[in-house]
């Protein structure tokens, strides 16, 4: 059952469309990643879901309510990219205020805050926030996003600007949250993090969603598995001459790299591998190595981004 439904969401600033007709849905308990380059419209999309920005057009339903409705806000935890905290307050007083604002009973709030801070290993809970490190502040901000025990969490670059240790800590904590049944909308520049915790992703570029689905499906659609066949002879000529059949191996995308007297043939399907092997044997050579390689999300993302940008600039 979808807990987030987005339909043709659009945001314009004057003549500039920051988000153009985004449509997607997120199932309850899912971790949904939103990725894309700077200015792709990720943060605008997340803020529209959080009720911070009013869409120009389209609709969104989060936890059964339209963004901005108090009932929806009570079911939402939002962690913006920056963690603007009140530096004169202590973590305890700061978190207690937000719990109070969300109507969480004081005793419940106290238990929840202490448990979350325990889990995040945040000490110095009565120290002035202004005197804390960036990582500690981030932990306070994450705890604040959880004070109302939300159904849906929107994490916009939760590990932005943090050291690797704290980053891993926060990614691990996010994974734990997803295991408790929270629905998490997650945005990050570091695609490794997205790949490691997201069930599905939407790739955005220039305001539009250019690809979406599970990471495997996207990989399949925008890259798939790559085969690298190393041989003592270059089989490209023979391969092209012997494979004019449309049903034969796909040799159009064949790439050949020559190194140390070896020829590395890069192809996209097993049929092409078999064809290379046949040509090499026919030319008296031999196969020295065959490797398979799955592209990373980052590589797929770069490919999609360049493709969509090229489409955009075509007349």
């Amino acid at each position, binding site marked *: 059952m979808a807990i987030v439904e987005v339909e043709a969401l659009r945001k314009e600033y*004057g*003549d500039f469309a920051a988000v153009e007709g985004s449509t997607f849905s997120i199932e309850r308990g899912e971790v949904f990643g939103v990725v894309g380059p700077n200015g792709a419209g990720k943060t605008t999309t997340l*803020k529209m879901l*959080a*009720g*911070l*920005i*009013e869409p120009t057009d389209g609709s969104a339903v989060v936890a059964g309510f339209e963004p901005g409705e*108090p*009932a929806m*806000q*009570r079911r*939402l935890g*939002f962690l*913006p990219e*920056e963690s*603007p*905290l*009140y530096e*004169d*307050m202590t973590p305890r*007083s700061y978190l207690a*205020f*937000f719990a*109070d*604002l*969300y*109507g*969480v*009973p004081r005793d*419940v709030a106290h*238990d*929840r805050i202490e*448990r*979350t801070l325990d*889990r995040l290993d945040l000490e110095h809970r009565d120290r002035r926030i202004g005197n804390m490190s960036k990582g500690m502040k981030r932990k306070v901000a994450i705890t*604040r996003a*959880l004070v*109302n*025990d939300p159904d849906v969490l929107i994490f916009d670059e939760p590990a932005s600007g943090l050291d690797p240790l704290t980053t891993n800590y926060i990614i691990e*904590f996010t994974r*734990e*949250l997803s*295991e*408790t*049944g*929270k629905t998490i909308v997650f945005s990050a520049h570091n695609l490794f993090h997205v790949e490691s915790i997201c069930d599905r992703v939407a790739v955005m570029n220039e305001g539009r969603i250019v690809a979406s689905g599970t990471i495997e499906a996207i990989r399949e659609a925008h890259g798939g598995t790559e085969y690298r066949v190393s041989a003592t002879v270059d089989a490209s000529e023979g391969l092209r001459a012997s494979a004019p059949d449309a049903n034969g191996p796909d040799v159009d995308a064949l790439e050949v790299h020559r190194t140390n007297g070896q020829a590395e043939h890069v192809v996209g399907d097993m049929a092409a591998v078999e064809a290379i092997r046949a040509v090499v044997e026919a030319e008296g050579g031999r196969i020295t190595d065959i490797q398979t390689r799955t592209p990373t999300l980052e590589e797929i993302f770069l490919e999609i981004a360049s493709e969509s940008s090229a489409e955009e600039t075509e007349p």
Partner: protein
Amino acid sequence: MTDGRDPDAGGADGIAGSARPAEAETGGLRGRVTRTLRVARWEVTRSVGTVDRKTILVVLAMVTVAGVVGLAAVDEGLALESELYVVGVDEDDPYHDVAVESTAFRPIPLSDVELEDGSEDGNVDVVIADDRIGHVGTNGEAAYDAFRGAVETYNERRMAAEADETAAYPVLVTLEYQDRDLGDPVGGDDLVDDEEDSTDLEPEADETATDDGADDDAVDEDDSGTDDREHGADGEVDDGDGQADGAGVDSTVDDTDDDELAVPDVGGGHAAEQTAPGTPGTLSPPFPFQSLVLAFLFVVPMNFVIQAYGSTIMDERIQRRGELLLVSPAGRLEIVAGKTLPYLLGLVGISVAIALAIGGGLLSIGAAIPIALAFLAATFTGAMFARSFKELTFVTVTISVVLTTYAFVPAIFTDVTPIALISPLTLIVLDLQGDSVRLAEYLFSTGPLYFGAAVCTLQGLGVYREEDMFTQKAIPSKAVDAIVSQIDAISRRVHAYASPFVLSALFIPFVFAAQLLVVAVFFAVPEAIALPVVFVLAAAIEEFAKSIHVYAGFARSRFDASLRVATVLGVLSGLGFFLGEKLTHAVQFVGLPELTVGVAAFGPALSSEPLVLAALFLAPLVLHVVTAVVGALGAARGRTSYAVAFVLATLIHAAYNLGVVSLVG
């Protein structure tokens, strides 16, 4: 209310727990009030946390000292000259009493006087012996002059205390303050004629010398003047000469005194104090110095409080701190109300304390509250528009100067002219003088500030959202955005084209307040200069109010920039303004059109002629529509065209005002 437990919540690992906020609490009015109070409580806690105890103590000490010094200055003066000079005089000398009564002198017996041989110094400044007065040392000359003055004061006091008045004052002068002749103030030759009277801002002392030294009637007249002043508040008619006896003595205005909304019984307090005989040196114009200074005490803390208030609003906008509040269940109105409430309550508390300290009543507090609201609302909007704390400083200083001027300057004329009623501070002065004020007069004084504060708050709220409050736009651009947010709100509820009508009407309080301020500022300027300036300024204010929202709509692409749309918007704007402007006819009821500059700003009083009335009713409608269309056509074509159109509309409007006033006035 629930116990905060949600059976549906997971919380399998206990990280986030299993409780959910109480649902019922957040709905409806109760929920809104609760959230507002939570924000208010947090604002207090947070603000207190940002100020260290030493600063609080220093501020408290400064406020206490300022209050004590202020009250002492008003009550008795600062006594800086207490026992400044030493007088050598024996107790049996007649001058001894002078030295004793004057606080500037300390008498010592002649036997204690020590004069250094060969030197001009000694332990005294003035020496009195054998009916001769001499001075000693470097301060001697100044001391001598001061002592001569003290002798005169002493003699005057003795004369005033003399039982046989005739013996003390063989010649009596009856002092009677007269209103200026304000009939037919503008137009034709009368304008020139009037100027002689009108430019004399001091109430004229109609000195009627009489050699009837024993004329008890003269004294009675003074007494009756005092009585009339007291009754004047109840609307009694002065049948004397048909004119107001003036600001100082009798405030009943004219034969229309039985009008429900007549000018209040302004002034008189000062004259009442002068019913006892005095010398010319003891006479002073009807300037309510003491009440004015005390009334000003209400405004002083507002200037400080808005600094803190502006900072807290600005603080939410720095580094996007306010974003987290915006994403909470609290709406922006609740957030702003919660953040404002402590400062408003603080100002109300301070006002109550000041009122108790200086003897003000509920009227004083009721007059101080709209001023406080205006200060806070303007600061809120200013803080929402400012891009940095540096800009905020400029904004708050501007607000302080403008609102303090608006409150204080008219109140100076409390005992002189009804123009004083523009300011709520006048109500405080009247309250301190013991004069009563009618509800209509209270509404006239405070209405523009109440409405202005409401509209300012709406403007600020319009940009209290993520898209506007964290962007670094110039103040004019933010102002345009704020107006556009209101256009959007009206568009959602009614129609985009309804916004010019509604906003033109909504801006009326600002127009009214701005024009009142113009009148107050130029009241004291010679009419030859004041009239043309007021004509143009009054027109410019109105044209700005009619066109700025149309320009904002075009600038942010809310309207199609076509000739037809601009014309429609202009017509609707003019119509809305015309209807709203009718509200300003309240000025008719408090007598501002009796003033020349009042006529220049608000037009002449309504005529009783039906044709004239009809013309006066329809002509402004045509004017406002025409000039609004001019403004809208310019606005549709961009900023430069808008500026040109605005000037053109202002000139048409000013010419119209001048024509109407000349013809009808």
